[in-house]
């Protein structure tokens, strides 16, 4: 997706565009049991994701569902020493704060899958702001769209996936004060 700079965007935001931000490594390894939660939530019976023999035959060992990619980088809801809400896509929340847009939804998501993610892997990622739109009004309210790319690697440095999110941050007229 091409980078985009809109004239009415503050320098604090244009400075962010195209720069890798928030490089992080997960504080826990990929867990087979936690991966089952996604399979259960979607009633996904793919034997590749449940059966060791099938996984050994096809991929040389157990893997987790490819679309669980982002969950292995999501912070705990709480952990010792943490202050405030723990969020995964920090650039998204930076933009909400900078533009004073308390509400947000994701509208588009692209995922490209590379090496499979396996139990025991420790995933790292970084975020890159690709573009920010000018002011837009939708049925939800007035705000802006932005695109954030996230690259994921495993502990060996192998690329396991790339995600691109389009978010819409907005002000909803008449909404309660944000808490």
């Amino acid at each position, binding site marked *: 997706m091409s980078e985009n700079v809109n004239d009415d965007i503050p320098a604090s935001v244009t400075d962010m565009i195209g720069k890798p931000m928030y490089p992080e490594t997960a504080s826990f390894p990929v867990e087979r049991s936690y991966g089952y939660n996604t399979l259960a939530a979607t009633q996904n019976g793919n034997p590749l994701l449940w059966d060791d023999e099938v996984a050994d035959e096809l991929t040389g060992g157990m893997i987790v569902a490819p679309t669980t990619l982002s*969950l292995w980088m999501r912070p705990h809801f709480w952990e010792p020493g943490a202050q405030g809400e723990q969020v995964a896509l920090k650039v998204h929340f930076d933009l909400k704060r900078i533009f004073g847009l308390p509400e947000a939804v994701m509208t588009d998501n692209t995922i490209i899958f*590379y090496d499979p993610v396996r139990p025991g892997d420790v995933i790292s990622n970084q975020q890159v702001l690709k573009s920010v739109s000018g002011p837009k009004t939708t049925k*939800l309210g007035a705000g802006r769209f932005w695109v954030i790319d996230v690259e994921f690697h495993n502990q060996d440095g192998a690329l396991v996936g790339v995600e691109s999110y389009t978010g819409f941050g907005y002000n909803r007229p008449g909404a309660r004060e944000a808490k």
Partner: protein
Amino acid sequence: MSNVTIPTPVLFPSVSVGDSLPELAVDVTPTTVVLGALASRDWRPMHHDYKFATERNGVQDIFLNTPNQAAWFERFITDWTGPKGRLGRMKFRMKTSVFPGDRMVLSGTVTAVDTDDTGCGWASIDVALTVGETVASTCEVRVAVPVDENDNPWSRTGDRWKP
């Protein structure tokens, strides 16, 4: 787990443009939404807190989160391909949210078939997630399927995997 029956895989030569995938219909409940959100470690309140969703986000109820929609698309695709099907990429747009009480129906049509320069067979599929007459989300999927009974897309690494 053992004694799992491996479904007969879809083979590339049998896939044609215009083929339809078997539909998947799901009655969405609050549990569907909350379970999907927590399974993807998405703790944001609009996916489990009715008052937050309605009063802050201004929508009618809690709603399916993004990674969970991706997981539903994955299930829909691999139900069709079988375990040898390997997702290359998916791109989806959420036009309107999916709420408890909705009956979501996933349907898909093959829009292209091709082999890349490594010999990997690919099917491109347009998926629609509809609720009643409304298309809530659309998803473009590129999935590798075996070119013959001996092929295994999962064996591809490095330059031989071009998603």
